[in-house]
């Protein structure tokens, strides 16, 4: 495959199937960040000399890339953060903490990532809100019917991943947004797993908030985005106050803040990271999000078809429209299987994948997760499946 040469990590003689944890990075993204540090490593928002001016240009170019990539209405709707986790906490603490009332209900599911659970738990603890769970169907999917059934007059927030990191199901976000808004409910979408793997269009989905992390989409660690509709972000209190985001502050009563998006980006930002993120977005656009989705679906089908023929393998998410396959080897603890695979330089994730409350729904407390990316290949999958065929061999070699 043509793309493989672009990724230095793919020359390392490993099979990398842990793309949901973090993706690999193309050389172009790495070079773009090195270029900043080597050739124009000044601070942003200063612009008094050429290289500092260039920083501002590159930084804002990255924002433009993202605005276009997610089809936001304007730059004001795209805030750079340290990642999906920070974005979700900003939404909960900066926006919702000011408007929720005791008794308000927050709807989530048991397959959410900890980062889309704990900020809501805190809100519930601090303000007397109630957390309710939208039931999952037998495939662990969210259905419109179950969302409808879970909504009450007290529902204020629905917070859902577009694609979950354990089950890999794609939620009907556009329909949920419509239903939520008909009922005066805010919809917060955790796009950490989806933004890298499918086309996401803010205006089409019509969500209120959407968050994602650069490192899961070919970009660097430590950068992410908080997207929010402009009229909502206007009311999001900055958690951080400080340099870069203020106009003037003569005394505590007279603090004037800048406009969006800068108002929500206090302090020196992760400049190299943001610029690298912009390059990653360019790369994704160049490959094409439709092509990426299609390729990953194909790879998943290819893998599942082979795994279902192995009697000692139980696939937990037979149906899923993403690159995620979660399974167990009958009678062997998932972590032991991962250690066995590691001996053959195969990187997979074992455990509960940060969705600690999912076990209430599946009865399975842990599993092995393969998460495929468009740069994985059929031959890698063949090698992987071959390693799993013989259960005795796994038992022999797992320690």
């Amino acid at each position: 495959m043509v793309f493989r040469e672009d990724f230095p990590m793919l020359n390392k003689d490993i099979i990398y199937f842990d793309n949901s944890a973090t993706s690999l990075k193309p050389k172009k993204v790495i070079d773009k960040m090195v270029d900043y540090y080597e050739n124009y490593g000044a601070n942003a928002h200063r612009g008094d000399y050429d290289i500092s001016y260039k920083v501002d240009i590159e930084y804002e170019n990255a924002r433009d890339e993202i605005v276009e990539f997610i089809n936001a209405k304007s730059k004001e709707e795209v805030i750079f953060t340290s990642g999906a986790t920070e974005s979700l906490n900003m939404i909960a603490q900066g926006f919702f903490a000011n408007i929720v009332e005791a008794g308000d209900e927050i709807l989530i599911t048991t397959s959410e990532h900890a980062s889309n659970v704990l900020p809501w738990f805190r809100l519930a603890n601090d303000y007397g809100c109630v957390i309710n769970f939208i039931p999952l169907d037998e495939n662990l999917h969210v259905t419109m019917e179950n969302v409808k059934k879970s909504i009450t007059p007290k529902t204020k927030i629905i917070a859902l991943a577009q694609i979950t990191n354990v089950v890999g199901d794609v939620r009907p976000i556009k329909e949920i947004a419509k239903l939520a808004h008909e009922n005066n409910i805010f919809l917060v979408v955790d796009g950490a797993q989806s933004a890298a793997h499918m086309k996401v269009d803010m205006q089409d989905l019509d969500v209120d908030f959407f968050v994602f992390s650069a490192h899961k989409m070919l970009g660097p660690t430590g950068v992410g985005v908080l997207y929010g509709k402009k009229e909502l972000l206007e009311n999001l209190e900055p958690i951080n106050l400080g340099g870069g985001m203020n106009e003037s502050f003569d005394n505590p009563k007279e603090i004037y803040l800048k406009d969006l998006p800068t108002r929500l980006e206090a302090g020196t930002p992760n400049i190299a990271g943001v610029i690298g993120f912009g390059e990653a977005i360019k790369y994704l656009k160049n490959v094409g999000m439709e092509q990426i989705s299609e390729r990953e679906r194909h790879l998943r089908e290819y893998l599942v078809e082979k795994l279902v023929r192995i009697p000692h393998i139980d696939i937990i998410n037979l149906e899923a429209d993403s690159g995620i396959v979660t399974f167990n080897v009958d009678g062997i603890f998932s972590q032991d299987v991962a250690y066995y695979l590691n001996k053959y330089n195969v990187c997979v994730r074992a455990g509960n994948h940060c969705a600690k409350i999912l076990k209430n729904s599946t009865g399975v407390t842990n599993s092995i997760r393969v998460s495929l990316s468009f740069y994985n290949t059929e031959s890698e999958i063949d090698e992987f499946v071959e390693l799993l065929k013989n259960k005795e061999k796994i038992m022999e070699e797992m320690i």
Partner: protein
Amino acid sequence: MDKREIILQHYSKPQNKKRMESEEYTKENTRNSSCIDNLDIYIKIKDSYIEDITFDGEACAISISSASIMTKNLNKKSVREGLEYIKNFENMLNEKEYEQNILKEAIVYENTKNTSRKTCAWLPYDAAKKILEKNI
């Protein structure tokens, strides 16, 4: 038996693996942050002696077998001897000097010292150490 066989045997037929509800036992939970190894250690201490020690829970082969060997080795020791044993085990994993003969079968984990499995081998010890330190 080679090391692997010892580990596998303690994994497939762990010793002292039972939950102890009785008040006479002190219970301590121990888990790995990176994965979901999750064990409870139960120790019954009388007159500074370990009268009985068991464990229960769900964990990988290394953690389960390590708990099995640990409970076998700690049983009927004084609290002081127990802590001494644990100290030796810790030293082995951290590549410090240790006394092989005190550790008995537990030396099979010597080769986990530079790997992520080190935390698995240590897991049950962490809980046992906490209980014993409170009862010295």
